[in-house]
């Protein structure tokens, strides 16, 4: 193969990889956008009337009332009520602010479930621990834990 042919072949390969990567990114982005708008749902082992007496939103979802839509549905098999919520379309549902709003929403749904089922939200801190060395891995674990209540598949 001549040098020119090799160069052409290489450029064609790079271009092909680029196209595939771009297409993949579009697919990922498309799904990310869909996910951003998706209803987030928890199943709470209580009736709708117990969770939202008189139609009022339960704590702490009530504090987000102007930014979210909420719907209730009977859960099959006597499992209680499916409580679904999503961010209202608008500026706060996109970008970094959107991600933060989603974390807030996930936390609120989880806490609403805990409050309805056990009566209080479990408190994790303070807890006994030894010396926390300042390491990269330690910082990653700390950051992951700080955000963990608002992350996940919910």
């Amino acid at each position, binding site marked *: 193969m001549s040098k020119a042919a090799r160069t052409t072949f290489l450029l064609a390969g790079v271009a092909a990889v680029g196209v595939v990567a771009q297409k993949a990114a579009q697919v990922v982005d498309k799904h990310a956008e869909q996910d951003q708008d998706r209803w987030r749902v928890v*199943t709470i*082992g209580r009736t709708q009337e117990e969770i939202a007496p008189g139609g009022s939103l339960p704590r702490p979802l009530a504090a987000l009332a102007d930014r979210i839509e909420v719907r209730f549905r009977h859960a099959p098999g006597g*499992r*209680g009520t499916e409580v679904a919520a999503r961010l209202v379309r608008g500026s706060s549902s996109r970008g970094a602010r959107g991600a933060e709003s989603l974390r807030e929403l*996930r936390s609120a749904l*989880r806490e609403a*479930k*805990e409050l309805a*089922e*056990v*009566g*209080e939200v*479990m*408190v*994790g*801190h*303070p*807890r*006994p*621990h*030894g*010396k*926390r*060395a300042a*390491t990269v891995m*330690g910082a990653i*674990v*700390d950051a*992951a*834990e700080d*955000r*963990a*209540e*608002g*992350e*996940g*598949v*919910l």
Partner: protein
Amino acid sequence: MKALTWRGVNKLAVENVDEPRILNTSDVIVRVLLTASCGSDLHLIGGYVPTMRAGDVIGHEFIGEVVEVGSGVRKHRVGDRVVVASFIGCGACYYCLNDMYSLCDNTNPNPGIPEALWGASPGGIYGYTHALGGFAGSHAEYVRVPFADVGAFTVPEGLSSERALFASDAVPTGWMGADLGGVGPGDVVAVWGAGAVGQMAARAAMLLGAERVVVIDRIPERLEQVRNFIGAETIDYEDTSVLPELRELTGGRGPDVCIEAVGMEAHSTGADYLYDQVKQQLRLQTDRPTAVREAIMAARKGGSVFVLGVFGAVVDKFPLGAVINKGLTVRGAQQHGQRYIPMLLERMQRDELTTEHLATHVLPLSDGAKGYDMFKNKKDGCVRAVFRP
């Protein structure tokens, strides 16, 4: 107070830490009387399970005395001697109400981490990574016990702490493997691993009516314990080929129920062990599933395999074809201790279940690092190092 903490990969130390406090109304504070090392701790200590943080207090199998009670606690009062299930269950969610306490929806305050790893979050557990709640563990003078009415059980008078200690984790874990593995009268059961959990799985299988129980390991002292204290048969896999031996023992069928009680750091004598070691050390797989593979290959057609050993994420060369074509039922779980502990304490009182022999080394907490070294490296016949804070 003094506590045994994880300081980094294969580093433990006893440190002075703050005492725990009541944080929720359902909490009690327990003064720890005895707290046991567990094989699953070794995965954390060795760095195989991420999300440990330097300074974390480890330990999840313990017995103690209630010294402080939250305002919402109804079943316990100061002075009660309690054994505590290692997994924390709220008692009110769908999973707890259906006896699957380790799957509790409400006791892991860090659900985002396990959801990313496994697609859902199990409940929290004492001293077992920030992925599973970041709760301070029991290798300490005091420990906070959330949802105490659900997870702490008063130990009956006359039952020694040395025996009841293992009702916290090893005994219910083993029992669950035999129970949910479907052991019934007339079954032949094979158990991989002769540690405390494997021994208790074997004993449970016998009590559930199994006609023949065989335990597989390579550590002579542990196999001797199986024969002497459990009453099961043994196979030393360094002396014989396990699969042909099991086929011979079972009339060519294979065991009806296979229980794996080894976990992610399995050993074997075959080439697959070397393969798994290389891949695990290169972080190309997180777990070495040698015993699981063997259990699947050994099980009879239509039999069941229960995975009790702790696994973190992904494995390689999983014999899915054998699962499908032999029609196997494969299950696994972290222990649903609350489901079994009252019954197990009664059986302990009747001497149907004895566990004292497991605590081969009882040490002060200040010897925590030494105890884990003995336990990990099977020094001096160590089966379990138990600490007395």
